[in-house]
């Protein structure tokens, strides 16, 4: 077998698909991270009507892109601890998949990044950054460099995750307060 010419290795290294571990957590791992006391997570996916999507947009100021939203109830001994929601927002090149835990009274329990395909801005997974969301309600600003710090080089990703969490709080008020 002839050796591969070394000069071919340079462009190959530049253009080859990156071998980055993009999937950081499974849904089950994220559920346990956000609601460690919960003993079960029954599915409670919601299908949003046009009116509900408009109401979410009105409350949050953020467009509700999806008609279906993946939602689970976090329960302990049958008692509701909160809602676990998986969402996707636009990153610079691909969608970012994250999960938010929301308490029944409309506060953010925490967020976890499940899939982040943008190479730069990996600090978005840092606990310090994610912790900034804890306790926030729909009345908070959710504004980069005000109540949520920006991450250089990943501003669009930070903005869209921040807006996404605010939108999920609005979704909770519109849909989950009374059901599903």
């Amino acid at each position, binding site marked *: 077998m002839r050796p591969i010419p*070394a000069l071919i290795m340079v462009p190959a290294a530049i253009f*080859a698909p990156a071998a*980055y571990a993009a999937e950081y957590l499974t849904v089950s791992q994220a559920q346990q991270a956000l609601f460690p006391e919960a003993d079960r997570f029954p599915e409670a996916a919601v299908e949003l009507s046009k009116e509900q999507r408009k109401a979410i947009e009105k409350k949050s100021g953020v467009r509700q892109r999806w008609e279906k939203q993946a939602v689970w109830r976090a329960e302990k001994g049958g008692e509701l601890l909160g809602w676990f929601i998986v969402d996707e927002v*636009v990153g610079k090149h691909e969608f970012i998949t994250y999960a938010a835990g929301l308490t029944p009274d409309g506060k953010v329990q925490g967020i976890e990044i499940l899939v982040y395909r943008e*190479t730069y801005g990996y600090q978005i997974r840092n606990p310090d950054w994610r912790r900034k969301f804890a306790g926030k309600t729909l009345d908070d600003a959710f504004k980069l460099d005000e109540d949520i710090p920006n991450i*250089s*080089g990943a501003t669009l990703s930070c903005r869209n995750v921040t807006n996404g969490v605010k939108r999920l709080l609005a979704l909770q008020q519109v849909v989950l307060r009374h059901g599903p």
Partner: protein
Amino acid sequence: MNKKTACTAALLASVLVVSGRSWGDEGLFGYVKGAETLPKGAADFEQWFTWRGDKGTGSYNALDTKTEVDYGITDRLSVSGAFFGLGIDTQDIMFDAYIPKDEKYTWKPAGVEAALKYNYLSPAKDDIGLSQYASLTYFWQDVHSGQNKSVYSFETILIAQKYYLDGQLVAAGNLGLEATSAKRASIDGLPPDFEWPTHPEMEIELTAAAGLTYRFAPSWFIGAEIFYQTEHETEVGQERWSVQAGPTLHYGGKRWWATLTWLPQLQGGGLDYEGQTDTDLHLIEKTKQEVRFKFGFNF
């Protein structure tokens, strides 16, 4: 290939693999500049190829190359250095004061550039992104004729950028002003009646450009851009103007990006050459067709 070269190439490949990062200053468009700057400490390598062809007479093909390295000094300020090259093949074209004779070479070093880009407003954080670009350029080859010519330019561009649909649709606009001082080198053996001035000339160029691009699939953008240029010169007043527009395709991966843009001239005016039939185009300095391919990666 000797062992040392092989080891160097392998080492470079390894470094590129390990250090691959994504882009703060990704070239979404071929001609229109975006308002984002590199994050502090990040660096970016870009390689451009621009083919220009067809003057409506004779045979004209030119290939411009630009090799650029950018570095983020702060999150808002980046600097860059670029090296230009030129390849040209022109036959049976003689334009007084512009193209004196046939010329053909595959590639020659043609110029250098130093530039700054400062971001005033972030397109992702503020209502609209706003940046300013400023460059100093020195060319020793005339990119139109391929002859020797000293060209010093200062250019500044105001750049606006706006994200729509959470960033899935990107709009950008540029307004530019360039001042140039140029002096042709003398050429022996030209016909006695051929005009080839060798005294210094001053030129002012204004540009306006706009682009819109949409992410139709993960990592893939398709869009269009339009580019207007007008140049005023000391002796002839408005020397030329042109409008170019066309489609642009962009791929932005995790570690590299590439952009392909076709930008034919749609309208133009100013000086024309004797016997020019395409009177609604400017073809002395510009061409009918332009295609640009560029790619970049960070390290």
